[in-house]
């Protein structure tokens, strides 16, 4: 019962913050609402017995990613959304489409009998990391994916560098730019 009350509180905050993202005018306010939403999701993770995940959520999402978001918003200072309308006729079309899709998923979810399983494992640091780095022959093999993830992060980094590095254009156009 208590769990339900906590859940409801956190859920309302998360959903409310998500709605704030949708409705806020300035990207910074949106980013702040996003942080609130993420932190309350972290709370729900804790409530559901996955404290490790909750901590990671706070650190990576609410910490690192949102840092990046606010940083970029600050750098590109002209990023104000005031000139353009928040919603336009396209939105009239998007919202029903997404809602229909969501309703379908919802119906499917409601029709399935879901119940908590007593034997479920608490996602503590120890258990999670043991599974993740189990290199035994018959194990889950997540360590391979971990290696692939390393490649993925490398590729993301290089991709970001390639796109955002200042001078990488062709020599001719750079020269033209310098003369100006």
């Amino acid at each position, binding site marked *: 019962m208590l769990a339900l009350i906590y859940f409801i509180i956190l859920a309302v905050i998360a959903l409310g913050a998500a709605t704030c993202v949708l409705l806020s005018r300035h990207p910074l306010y949106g980013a702040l609402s996003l942080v609130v939403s993420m932190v309350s999701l972290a709370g729900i993770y804790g409530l559901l017995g996955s404290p490790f995940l909750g901590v990671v959520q706070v650190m990576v999402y609410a910490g690192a990613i949102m840092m990046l978001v606010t940083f970029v918003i600050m750098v590109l200072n002209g990023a104000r959304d005031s000139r353009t309308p928040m919603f336009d006729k396209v939105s009239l079309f998007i919202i029903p489409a997404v809602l229909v899709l969501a309703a379908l998923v919802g119906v499917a*979810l409601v029709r399935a009998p879901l119940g908590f399983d007593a034997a479920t494992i608490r996602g503590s640091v120890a258990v999670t990391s043991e599974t993740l780095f189990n290199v035994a022959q018959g194990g889950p093999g997540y360590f391979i994916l971990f290696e*692939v993830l390393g490649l993925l992060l490398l590729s993301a980094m*290089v991709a970001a*560098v390639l796109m955002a590095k200042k001078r990488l254009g062709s020599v001719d156009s750079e020269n033209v730019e310098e003369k100006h």
Partner: protein
Amino acid sequence: MTSLVMFMPVIVVALGALVSLAAEPFLNDESKHKVLPWVAAVFVALGMAAFALVKVDCVYDLFAVDPVRRLLGVSVLLCALLGIGGLQWMLGREKMKGGEAYGLMLLASCGALLMTQAIDFLSLFIAMELTSFPVYALVGIRRKDQNAGEGVFKYFVSGSIFSAFFLYGVALIYGATGSTHMFSAVLEGRGSIYAVGILLVVFGLLFKAGAAPVHFWVADVYTGASVAVTGFMAAVVKVGALAALGSVWVGILATRAGAPAAWNLAEPVKFASQSPALYYVVLVVAILSMVIGAFSGLAQKSIRRILAFSAVMNAGFIVIGLLLPNYLKEGSVQLGSMFFFLVTYAIASAGALTGIAYLAGKEDKNENLEDIQGVGRRRPFVALGVAVCLASLAGLPPVAGFLAKFALFAGAFSAGMTATAIFGFGLSLVAAVYYLRIAYVLFAPRKEPCQCKCCCQTDPHYGYMLKFTVSLAALALLAMSVLPASALIG
């Protein structure tokens, strides 16, 4: 470490990526485009050779290798070679600073290799993202170009939204089966969640493959990217996505029947657990893609855009392969002809676009149909390769594309999809018009003598690999038509 051997091709290609990325800062701008592509190409070639070591097996229920996946892997690497050749030509000629692009291309190829081998949704997702991120950057490689920026933007936004859909589908499947593995049985009473999840996953993959109705990004992104990158992207991403779709498809059959895993794509599968709804989904997607691709392509002027709509149409053809030999009535699936089609399509489109990158002039300025007229006469060698690739796309014998189309339509005929087969056949004829139009324009008489000095002054060093790889692609297509069996055994 048997598993290490299984990943040998991927490891070799990833090593190549690391080496070329690490060597990049130590070279001056001139030699970057002379050295790095060759380094990358050597690693890709080694990667191809490493497929000889790989045995038919699956590792940790995450990745699997079988003859079909091996063939797909080799074709991915062949397309990567084409991509590197095109990129070298483009970057070298435009004197771009920085050579990170080669490393990125290899990373994307790694991702596509893993996509073809994945038999677990989590590994598939990671591999998919590993393919996507480098491609986002490669699309935007011409940074001053407004169209390139627009292309990246569209690709990134729609790509991430559909990968979110894909991941949500995976979550639902996990909820329904208790595992992210493709072949695990559905839990009691959760069939409805599974059905929705699988639809989301399928559309996530169809998005990457560029099938209608989730095809809108294709035309703009293909046009925004430089021609060389378009060639790479058209082939590699599509091979990855459709190969994964094939695995998922077999997985659906197994899951619904509660049968043990059947990850070997080379073998026919029969579970009699088909879903008529999914049959119609595939049919609708196929027909929509074919119609939109065939007719929208006719109206285009830009070769990239023509081939973009051809990509949409071919995605439609390929998904028909999911229903062969008789999905609806018997629930039996044999994906051999689908993957043969996929491989021929990938090599042909990559080869054609890379060749056109060679012919299209500086910064792809002369890439429209009227601008490229007669270019093939000045550079007959590459143009001939392009013509072979286009003939394969159009389905003319004796190139492999004909056999692939023939096998596919013959299968559809026998499977009782007579109307679809005839319809697709008719549309493929419509499409043949625009492929042949490109080939015709390439060899038509020139309107005026060459005025641009730019194309004549380029250092020929940059073109060697491109010429070599384009002719390799053309030869591969011819060889596959003469001996399609050997392609599947290799």
